[in-house]
């Protein structure tokens, strides 16, 4: 901003205060009314929607629904949008580049938009940017709220041909019991993300050792993976899961 513009602003603000009113009681009264009403709403919510007690933590069971609170849905959905197979870049886009870029932009915004104009209709670029960002956040939050919470009905998922492979069938059982479907999708059943669609997993030509190692420590095999490590299966169970995964799209389905 030019010096003259700064001075013009100061003059204008002084003028606005000249016929202004005192902070107390006018602003204080307004503030108290809105704050009290908001507190009332919070208390009403606390009374009407009672807090629940969930299940105690058990790191050994992996039957979980990794869903964040609603205000993180947009990040969660971002992860699904940039969902990648093995590629490192898309995951970093969602987990690192996009959120951090937005955060830095937000913090330094006054140094980007430095013009003196404050009227909405005279700041089309700023206002359109803000509206686009707000709509994106609203859309992603809405998507997150509507996405299946991982409680996928096991009987909905059918894998034709699996009954000929007893070991794979046992692996399938484990897949359903351990909440894998809350991040992965097979034949259109399960959550569309953050994990990749596994319908054609077998076609990737991975070895059973690869699958077992990946289950034990995902980031070692897929850099940037946010999948939790599954460390509590028996050797037998790991083998069954690996056979199941490598058969998807090849031996059955």
């Amino acid at each position, binding site marked *: 901003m030019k010096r003259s513009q700064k001075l013009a602003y100061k003059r204008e603000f002084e003028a606005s205060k000249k016929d202004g009113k005192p*902070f107390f009681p006018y602003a204080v009264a307004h503030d108290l009314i*809105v704050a009290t009403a908001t507190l009332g709403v919070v*208390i009403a919510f606390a009374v009407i929607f009672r807090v629940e007690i969930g299940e105690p933590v058990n790191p050994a069971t992996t039957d979980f629904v990794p869903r*964040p609170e609603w205000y993180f849905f947009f990040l969660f959905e971002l992860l699904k949008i940039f969902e990648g197979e093995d590629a490192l870049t898309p995951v*970093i886009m969602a987990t690192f580049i996009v959120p951090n870029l937005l955060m830095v932009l937000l913090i330094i915004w006054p140094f980007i938009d430095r013009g003196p104009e404050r009227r*909405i209709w005279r700041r089309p670029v700023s206002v359109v940017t803000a509206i686009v960002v707000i709509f994106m956040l609203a859309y992603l939050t809405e998507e997150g709220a509507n996405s299946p919470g991982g409680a996928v009905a096991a009987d909905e998922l059918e894998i034709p041909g699996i009954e000929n492979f007893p070991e794979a069938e046992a692996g399938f059982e484990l897949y359903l019991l351990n909440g894998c479907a809350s991040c992965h999708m097979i034949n259109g059943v399960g959550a569309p993300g953050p994990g990749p669609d596994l319908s054609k997993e077998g076609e990737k030509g991975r070895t059973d050792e690869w699958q077992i190692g990946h289950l034990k420590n995902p*980031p070692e095999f897929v850099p940037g993976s946010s999948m939790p490590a599954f460390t509590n299966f028996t050797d037998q169970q790991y083998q069954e899961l690996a056979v199941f995964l490598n058969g998807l799209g090849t031996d059955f389905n």
Partner: protein
Amino acid sequence: MSTEATPQDQEDRTARAAKDIGPTGPITKATDMTLEYVDERTKVVPDVKWMMFRKIPKETSWFQTLGFTALVIFAMQAVTGIVLAMFYKPDPATAFNSIEVITDEVTWGWLVRGMHKWGASAMVIVVFLHMGRVFFFGSYKYPRELTWVTGALLLVLTMFMALTGYLLIWDQKAYWATVVAVNITASAPILGPYVADILRAGPEFGPNTLSRFYSLHMLVIPGAIATLIGIHLYLIARLGISEPPYSKRLMKARREEEDARRRAAREQLPHGRKPVPAPGTTPQREPVTADGGGSS
């Protein structure tokens, strides 16, 4: 902001004392004496008076109350959080049980926990709306850029508060959601793995992870938030509450400016160079000539 009692103030006080207009009530007398006692020892009374009775623009919007509302919710979160901390045990073996005790046994415990939980959502919403108000009013512009920066940092810290608080419930949902959140952190390049190790208090989720999140949620982040709120409020008091850009006063001033500019343009005079004729007077026009001079 006037920083100390000026000689003028002193004179006023002596003048008032000399011009004793009669008996004052005991309450007024006690208030005056207390104020005088405090002011002599702190020199803060004129500042507080200035702060409370300073002029703000005549037309302010109801949307300009959201900042104070966020402050009140922060205070509510602090109070309910303190109460919860009296019963909560940040240890993996007992954490879940202490949550059960708070919810089912402690008097009003369910209410305090419910307020804290819904307060977190209310905080995110109110802070977001507050930011939208500041954005659409253009209030982040000169001279309030740094107020915006502290506010944006407060929004980020609010999100961290929500993230760290979520784990403390120590149920399956919270646990696994946080495992994934920390895994996502670990996937970030360069610093990611180190930040994740710091959050987890080691390479794996363990007993220390819970106390670390507890410490972040109870001490580190609230401390940072309180400090930033202090700076934010100081800047707001110092710089004043901005006027909505659509206020009648501003619109009138802008209209007059615009009229003046149009009048000047009509006469093809550089704006501000020559005195603009008052509205109503017929502008003197040059005759239209072949080379275009004087035409509009």
